[in-house]
């Protein structure tokens, strides 16, 4: 049943916000997916993190959602906000002038309950698939100082290493939604990251073995929703095109 209790305590001057939130517990046979409606008063500088906690605190203690850092660093609060995949902790209610916000869990990932999804399983599968670790023939001697890396190359690697695996690029990507085996922008970015890393000795042919197919780089349709929604502004458009050019020329 929709819940419409209105909080009017000490924030009575704020405008009224209407939240529609998916409620569903796939592990409970009695649970039926439906949108529950909640109305709360907006507070100054309110984010979705604040609003969801307020709803859980005062209206629905059963509501499930994920947050850890509240600062756009951990990537755990990705959700569909009025159809767009966003980090809830960085999304302000003031960005919605009509005061109506519909929250859905990110598609492409397994649903735990309500807004809570498991991105970890997907990311783990992707990491293993693209062999997301430095490949080096030589045995590493940890007692010796690391060889210096050219600043430009280090910057290029760190730039792509900023990915927080929030899953937003996957949830934004129509290809990933239609084709569950598609490696996604996060996986292609990971390949580009190791290609840039001077420590990694893999060559283009090695990367081709990992993503040289229609579930990899050649399955990407360049809809670029990943680029447009990435909360870390990673250069996905540029790097996917770069890897496509490189891998398409592998003999």
């Amino acid at each position, binding site marked *: 049943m929709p819940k419409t209790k209105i909080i009017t305590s000490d924030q009575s001057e704020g405008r009224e916000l209407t939240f529609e939130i998916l409620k569903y517990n796939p592990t409970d046979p009695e649970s039926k997916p439906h949108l529950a409606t909640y109305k709360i008063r907006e507070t100054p500088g309110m984010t979705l993190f604040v609003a969801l906690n307020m709803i859980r605190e005062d209206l629905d203690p059963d509501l499930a959602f994920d947050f850890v850092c509240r600062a756009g660093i951990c990537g755990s609060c990705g959700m569909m906000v009025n159809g767009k995949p966003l980090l809830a902790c960085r999304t302000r209610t003031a960005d919605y002038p009509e005061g109506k916000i519909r929250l859905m869990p990110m*598609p492409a990932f397994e649903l735990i309950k309500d807004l809570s999804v498991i991105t970890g399983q997907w990311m783990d599968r992707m990491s293993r698939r693209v062999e997301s670790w430095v490949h080096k023939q030589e045995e590493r001697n940890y007692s010796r100082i690391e060889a210096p890396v050219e600043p430009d190359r280090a910057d290029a690697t760190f730039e792509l290493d900023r990915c927080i695996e929030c899953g937003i690029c996957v949830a934004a990507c129509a290809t990933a939604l239609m084709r569950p085996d598609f490696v996604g922008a996060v996986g292609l970015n990971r390949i580009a990251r190791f290609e840039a890393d001077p420590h990694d000795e893999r060559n283009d042919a090695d990367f081709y073995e990992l993503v040289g*197919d229609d579930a990899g780089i050649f399955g990407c349709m360049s809809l670029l929703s990943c680029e447009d929604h990435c909360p870390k502004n990673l250069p996905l458009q540029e790097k996917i095109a770069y890897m496509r050019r490189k891998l398409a020329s592998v003999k």
Partner: protein
Amino acid sequence: MSDLIEGYLGKRADGTKSRMPALLDRWQSITGLILGLFIIGHMFFTSSILLGKEAMYKETKLFEGSLFLEKPEPALVSIAAALIFLVFIVHAGLAMRKFPYKYREYKMLKTHAAHMGHTDTILWMLQAGTGFAMFFLGSAHLWTMVAIPDKIGPYASADRIYSEHYGVLYALLIAAVVIHAMVGLYRLSVKWGIAVGPRPRAGRRRNKKMMWGAILFFSLMAYAALATYWQIGREHRGSYGERYTPSAMQNRGDVL
């Protein structure tokens, strides 16, 4: 033997992954580029009617080899149309790999595109839809050009559009082909990172503006040309089948 191994295992005989996905992706883009550029030229050529019947007539004869043949040969148009038809079929076959095949895939895509409101995603849906429409519209047009290449000209084309009712087919085809080709060329630039310049994000914004401009320009031009052909065909309906004779030949009493 290697075909058998690749067919069953998706790998080549030396154990490495098949290079076919790379080849297919490349050829999808190459054939798309050929068709996109062809369409731009084609729309300019057919729109020569906006400059008058004489201009359109001269251009038609040019494509029939009037520059190097004593007598223009419509078979040249047939050959060119057949080649384009071949590229068209290859492109359609390769692009089909990306279509949503199953109801669940289609439903997911439709819901996602509608709710997210992401322009490029919606444009791709339009591209897939217009591509599907062109299986029929484009094939019908191309086959006409292969089968009856001699029926191109200020009156012949206008008669086809008005009296033979091809106008409806062309009205639908123009919308499909302009959207499909211009979005396709834009997507090619971002897909391969070509013609985006040193600042890819700015390059993409610029190319997208150019895409919208091109869609508007070519739509206006092509529909203006179609309306002109339709008007000529309507005025010429009493003499349906009569061919256009340029003014210079009329003076000589010569008719092609």
